[in-house]
């Protein structure tokens, strides 16, 4: 390893970055825009769900139940004269759920009990449907308690589940989605940038000129890695700052741990890009492979949106080679829970293994040769 050579290669890379606006755009503008779009665009918190209310015979009882619904922030109710027209509205996507109180609602609930409240949900978006189901259920339970207290006879509820949610009591999805998004964005940037810049050197013929100098292959790879690492860390800091100051995600862990794990992750992502470009050599193929192997896998297989434990066994195994998986877990702990070594250590180990694999693959497969 020769200092002057590595420094020379790095200086060249920095000039190229600074003078080619497209790499600056990828490193800084892209995370900014993506985080803004994702931060605002990705949310699982259903608010103001349009609900159709069909009340066949309004009474004070139906009114008290519905007013509970009307005052809930989750719902945006609208009255429909009958079930048929409400279902029509659901078909057209104007309402997501229908609450149907039959004409005998008040009479039966005062005498015999067991009066049905019919809830019909559009089940297409199963997740959303389940959330709505829970909301309605919660609202109904509250109403039951109120009614019972009003009538002076406590409600017979044998077991009450007191649910407490740690780390994110309000279940604000943004608080856990944003750390996950940072992981996805950094995968993209890290892998895409390096995949493109190395392949570009092959295509422009600059690599052939460099190869016939006494430079060692590790020096060439290092000269690529370090500048983009620094730039990627810049993008990472920008994203973290946005998460904390713009989206108000609490940062409970220490900045040191965050930076440390980000550094390891970025190294892995860059290593992946390097490995792709070393294996592909053509810019077009490298970019294709980078796109296919970064964004969608990080989006779907990292556990950021979909629970990994619920996936079929074979796919769970597959998620172990998705670097974002480890970083998502670390980031979510770092931001929401604090420095939990029991989470951070195994995940960082996973990252380290991947990092060694990718960088090792690049070093092994990179030849100072054309054949």
């Amino acid at each position, binding site marked *: 390893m020769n200092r002057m050579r590595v420094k020379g290669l790095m200086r060249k890379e920095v000039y190229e970055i600074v003078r080619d606006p497209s790499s600056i755009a990828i490193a800084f503008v892209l995370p900014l825009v*993506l985080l803004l779009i994702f931060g605002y665009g990705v949310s699982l918190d259903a608010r103001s769900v349009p609900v159709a209310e069909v009340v066949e015979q309004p009474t004070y009882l139906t009114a008290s139940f519905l007013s509970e619904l009307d005052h809930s922030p989750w719902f945006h109710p609208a009255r429909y004269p009958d079930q048929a027209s409400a279902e029509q509205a659901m078909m057209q996507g104007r309402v997501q759920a229908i609450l149907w109180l039959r004409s005998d609602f008040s009479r039966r609930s005062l005498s015999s009990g067991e009066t049905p409240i019919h809830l019909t949900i559009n089940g297409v978006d199963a997740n959303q449907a389940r959330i709505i189901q829970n909301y309605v259920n919660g609202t109904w339970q509250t109403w039951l308690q109120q009614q019972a207290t009003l009538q002076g006879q406590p409600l017979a509820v044998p077991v009450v589940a007191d649910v407490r949610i*740690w780390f994110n009591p309000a279940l604000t999805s943004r608080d856990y989605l944003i750390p996950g998004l940072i992981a996805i964005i950094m995968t993209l940037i890290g892998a895409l940038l390096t995949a493109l810049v190395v392949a570009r050197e092959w295509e422009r013929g600059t690599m052939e000129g460099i190869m016939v100098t006494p430079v060692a292959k590790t020096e060439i790879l290092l000269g690529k890695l370090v500048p983009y690492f620094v730039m990627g860390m810049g993008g990472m800091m920008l994203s973290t700052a946005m998460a904390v100051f713009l989206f108000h995600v609490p940062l409970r862990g220490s900045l040191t741990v965050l930076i440390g794990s980000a550094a390891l992750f970025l190294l892995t992502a860059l290593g992946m890009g390097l490995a792709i470009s070393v294996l592909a050599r053509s810019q077009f193929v490298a970019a294709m492979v980078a796109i*296919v192997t970064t964004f969608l896998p990080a989006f779907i297989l990292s556990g950021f949106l979909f629970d990994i434990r619920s996936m079929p066994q074979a796919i769970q195994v597959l998620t172990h080679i998705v670097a974002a998986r480890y970083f998502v877990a670390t980031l979510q*702990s770092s931001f929401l829970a604090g420095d939990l070594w029991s989470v951070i250590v195994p995940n960082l180990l996973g990252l380290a293994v991947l990092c060694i694999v990718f960088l090792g693959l690049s070093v092994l497969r990179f030849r100072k040769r054309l054949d």
Partner: protein
Amino acid sequence: MRTRILRVFALVVKELLALLRDPASRAVLIGPPIIQLIVFGYAATFELKHVPFVVYNQDQGQLSRELVARFAGAPSFDLVQFVYDQSAVKKAINNKSALMAMDIGPNFTSDLERGQPAHVQIVLDGRDSNTAAIAMGYVQSIVTHFNESQVLQHGTKPPPTVLLDRALFNPNLDSRWFIVPGICGILTLLVSMLTTGLSVAREREMGTFDQLLVTPMPPTEILLGKALPGFLVGTAEGTLIVLMAIFWFHVPFTGSLIGLYIGLLCFLFAAVGIGLMISSLAVTQQQGLLGVFLFMVPAIVLSGFATPIANMPQAVQYITLLDPLRYFLIVLRGSFLEGGGIALFWPQYWPLLMIGLICMVAAGNLFRKRLA
């Protein structure tokens, strides 16, 4: 006229041959979409299976064991271990060995037997709030069922009302039925954009574009010749993926096939239009790829593929109106699950046609300006 048609036809044949004879682009077009559909189709599910939980049971009675057994027996939950103090609960949640902890107080059985409400504390890991929210729903429904059986056994008065819910279109709330049609849309978009977004840039780099420009073909014919392969490849790929959704993933197809295909064509019109616009702007393939990519990522996120558009802030919802995938996902899900047809999809068709038309005209103008 005959010459014109033959010329465009020759260009289309050439584009398809260039795509399919080149092993690299053939691999990119056929392999990844199918693999992605299968992997993501299985991976992307909001159903929870095997939620690990620990139990801290301080109660000695029969009933608490019965409640725990209900949880342990449910397919969604996996009992990891019993713990014997509060700190162990904390540890299990913190290091993510359990997503949930049940903390049953010492008086659980006696409270129940005395007719007093018995409390059970459920702790959920909120770091993954979507999983936590879903798990919370599962907990509620298990507890509700437990209560019902208790009420039956003890003959206490049931609550005056019951909530009867049913889900239309997807009675078992299988999220795969929701996700797989979504993936159909994403992959169709990806393939058609890659086919059109890079085609002009590739010819520019190889120098064949000049060769085309010196022929008697007017720019409109070249543009048409570039647009049609995107349609053909997109339709073929879309058909393949839809067939896989139906026969591999067994997502029910309840709507009208014609309605879906009109939607597919409108969608491809928009996607190809955007692809051509990128194409006419990009000088190099790298720029083209970046352009495709910069469009694809937000288009997927803002389409309502995984998270509903209704949850987005109003301003962002307006932006989604420009996203062709948004409309196509409605058509896809509508025709798969909701039994929708042409009449119902009309509000989705025309925005797609508008987007496509505007992009095509813009691409044509940019194209001509580039040449000038």
